[in-house]
């Protein structure tokens, strides 16, 4: 599964779900309210959420490979573990797990009261089958689980135990195997053993899982879903009896009109602009507001293969100083967000290096650096020229969703004497040109900033073969490559943090790309009806406002340690 999620995923998820996070008063609220609701009569509720604008795909592990679809399939299929609201993977289908001191052998003990939706018992055979199917069988051709190619063997010494050995100790093992997004969805052997083309397998049989919900009906043209609780679920009947993903126009308005129980704003994404304070005030009167640090950003890319001046570090730094990113946050996000950290990890990433240069707006510094690079105004027209005196203009590629950001960049660089010519194309064209490196400078938006820092390797290491619009062009740094390779095999968290800090420091100094701003995530939810709304950090696509753990438990408290 992909570790660094892409923009579509992020957008779609944001559009779809309430994320929910601890605003100042959440902590006290969740404990009391949740247990109070569960204390008396068992009142089971129906939760309604907005459908994604983007097609989630058929809700099997192979049909739904992006965030919104992945979330849908996670209600049906279970992974061995699942994060609770602290973000750490906790036991789910597995009762417990442990690893050997060398980190290469993992033993999972499974629950023994689990049944598939069709009534057949779940056993360790199903787990072994799923891993074999995805690593060596037909599932491996889909590329969905390519991240776990370091797994060596998967065996079951007894019907409730699975042992996994790996060729190399990996710090990301748990995320890769039991993570909420990338983790392996366990499938019933008795159904899938005869399936040779998993991506095309559809129908009732394809939707048999062990999860807390069964899919009652769905419509992939409108992206709507209707889930009904699986009352035989092994952790007890889910408190949320029905889960409706319905189509609405504007989610916030729909929430205000009582059509939804929770909605997000898509704060400042794709040129939609920030939510006005007046609307926040109006919504806050009836709903609880949740905010969370952003994990989506809009960034400025420099294509170093295009030569002077893009291959000059001082030029890129000068651009960073010329940009007033706080002003961008103010204008585009109404102040609800932060300038992007220069090390390419998001503000909420546990691996964020807190001591990175901030590149605060400093026009004089930008000007003198540009002078040093050799971009001076040769003919006195107020616009900087190339060292040979010929006119210099930056063609700035942007998708039509980001023209407002591009205009801001262009105007701010103008103040430093740089001329910018906007090249506006539609989103798919922009993605394709970014991926192929057909630009000098480009505005690119994408999410995944809270994901595991291993994603930095794909985006920045010169050894990376990744093909993506988030991949920078022409950046080569031997030290970065070395650090990236070393952290991938470092189990010790502190040592790994040190290595990732150094990687970020290199990126912040070299600036192959500059994150412009990271919008804060904002959601509103009706807590009178349901008190299990919760934001799960480090679970990027998660519209895990809707952490399925909480749908079952009915409250937002972290899972008790098993």
């Amino acid at each position: 599964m992909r570790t660094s999620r892409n923009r579509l995923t992020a957008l779609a998820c944001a559009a779809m779900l309430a994320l929910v996070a601890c605003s100042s008063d959440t902590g006290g609220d969740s404990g009391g309210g949740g247990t109070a609701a569960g204390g008396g009569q068992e009142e089971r509720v129906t939760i309604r959420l907005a459908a994604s604008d983007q097609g989630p795909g058929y809700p099997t592990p192979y049909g739904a490979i992006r965030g919104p679809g992945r979330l849908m399939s996670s209600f049906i299929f279970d992974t061995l573990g699942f994060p609770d609201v602290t973000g750490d993977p906790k036991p789910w289908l597995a009762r417990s797990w442990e690893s050997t001191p060398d980190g290469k052998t993992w033993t999972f003990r499974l629950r023994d009261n689990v049944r598939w939706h069709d009534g057949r018992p779940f056993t360790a055979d199903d787990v072994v089958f799923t891993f074999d199917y995805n690593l060596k069988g037909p599932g491996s051709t889909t590329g969905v689980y390519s991240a776990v190619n370091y797994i060596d063997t998967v065996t079951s010494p007894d019907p409730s135990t699975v042992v996994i050995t790996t060729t190399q100790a990996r710090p990301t093992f748990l995320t890769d195997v039991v993570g909420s997004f990338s983790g392996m969805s366990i499938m019933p052997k008795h159904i899938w053993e005869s399936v040779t083309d998993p991506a095309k397998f559809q129908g009732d049989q394809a939707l048999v899982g062990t999860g807390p919900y069964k899919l009652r009906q769905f419509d992939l043209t409108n992206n709507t879903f209707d889930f009904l609780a699986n009352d035989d679920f092994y952790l007890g009947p889910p408190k949320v009896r029905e889960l409706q993903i319905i189509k609405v126009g504007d989610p916030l308005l729909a929430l205000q009109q009582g059509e939804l129980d929770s909605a997000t704003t898509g704060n400042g994404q794709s040129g939609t602009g920030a939510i006005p304070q007046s609307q926040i005030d109006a919504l806050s009167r009836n709903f609880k507001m949740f905010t969370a640090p952003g994990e989506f950003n809009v960034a400025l890319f420099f294509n170093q293969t295009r030569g002077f001046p893009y291959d000059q570090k001082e030029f890129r730094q000068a651009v960073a100083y010329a940009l007033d990113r706080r002003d961008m946050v103010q204008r585009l996000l109404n102040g609800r967000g932060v300038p992007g950290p220069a090390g390419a990890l998001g503000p909420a990433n546990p691996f964020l290096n807190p001591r990175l240069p901030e590149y605060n707006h400093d026009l004089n510094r930008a000007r003198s650096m540009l002078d040093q690079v050799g971009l001076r105004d040769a003919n006195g027209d107020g616009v900087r020229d190339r060292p040979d005196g010929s006119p210099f203009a930056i063609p700035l590629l942007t998708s039509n969703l980001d023209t407002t950001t591009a205009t801001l960049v262009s105007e701010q660089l103008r103040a430093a004497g740089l001329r910018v010519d906007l090249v506006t194309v539609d989103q798919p064209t922009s993605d394709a040109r970014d991926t192929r490196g057909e630009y000098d400078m480009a505005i690119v938006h994408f999410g995944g900033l809270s994901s595991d820092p291993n994603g930095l390797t794909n985006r920045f290491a010169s050894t990376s073969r990744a093909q993506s619009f988030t991949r920078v062009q022409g950046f080569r740094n031997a030290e970065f490559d070395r650090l990236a390779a070393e952290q991938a095999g470092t189990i010790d968290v502190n040592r790994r943090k040190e290595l990732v800090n150094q990687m970020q420091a290199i990126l912040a100094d070299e600036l192959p790309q500059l994150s412009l701003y990271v919008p804060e995530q904002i959601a509103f939810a009706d807590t009178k009806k349901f008190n299990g709304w919760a934001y799960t950090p480090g679970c990027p696509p998660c519209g895990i406002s809707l952490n399925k753990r909480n749908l079952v438990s009915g409250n937002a408290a972290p899972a008790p340690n098993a």
Partner: protein
Amino acid sequence: MTLPAVALPAGRTGVVTRARARVAGAAGALFVGFFTVLAVFGEQLAPYRATELAGPSLEPPSDAHLLGTNLLGQDVASQLILGARASLVIALLAGVGTVLVGGMVGVIAGWFRGWVDAVLMRVTDVVLVVPKLPLLLLVGALTGGRVGALSLLIAVTFWPVTARVLRSQVLSLRTRTHVRAATGFGAGTWHQLRNHILPDLALLSLAELIPAASRAVALQAGLAFLGVGDPSQPTWGGMIRDAIAYRSVFLIEAWKWWLVPPILAIVTLVAGISLLGTAGERRLSPRVSRHTR
């Protein structure tokens, strides 16, 4: 003979109609003149550059910003003033272009008749049924949507109706006695067209020019709204697009100063061109005026 009398409502005398026509004409001239001044002297009149970050985000109208600011803090009044040029230039270029292309095809087909006419009219039929908006979107996106390219594009897609109207007029003209007499005296094609046909087509061409120009204004605004256009050139359509892209524009007051002015500008200019055209037509030819009434 009774039909015209019945068609004219009681009490609507010629004097009143003529007075109305004059008022309408004056209003049209005023509107078009106003926007022409904006288009020509935009840089001198606008207090800010169109993209300049002139103030804080979404400021209501004030002395500093007569029509307030948009999401980025750009001055709406300046954008409105500077956007006039794209609209007027395209009205002129695309309007004249449409009439030129359509006129050429129509006159040649009508004058030469025979296989020339047959071929040209079949071509006209083909162009007539081409879905124009998708074509404009496609070619506009590919060519970057500069005003010149867009005008040309509008001209080469919208000429068929003009061609047909002018062709039938030429067909009719060439059977008139003076034209036939000239032919009898051995007048050549060029002489005939220049002295007898084209002068008589002038008025009809004007009548064709007006809708073509108004249509071009609306089309350009529509294309800019859909994102086809030169992003460095301020346009009214682009202003509307930006305003609507801001999802909350109707939840706060901003729509009043950000969205309404460019819409009003488009409506006013299109109406102005039409009024001016109608009035000009009446003035130039009482016969047409009577005929059209």
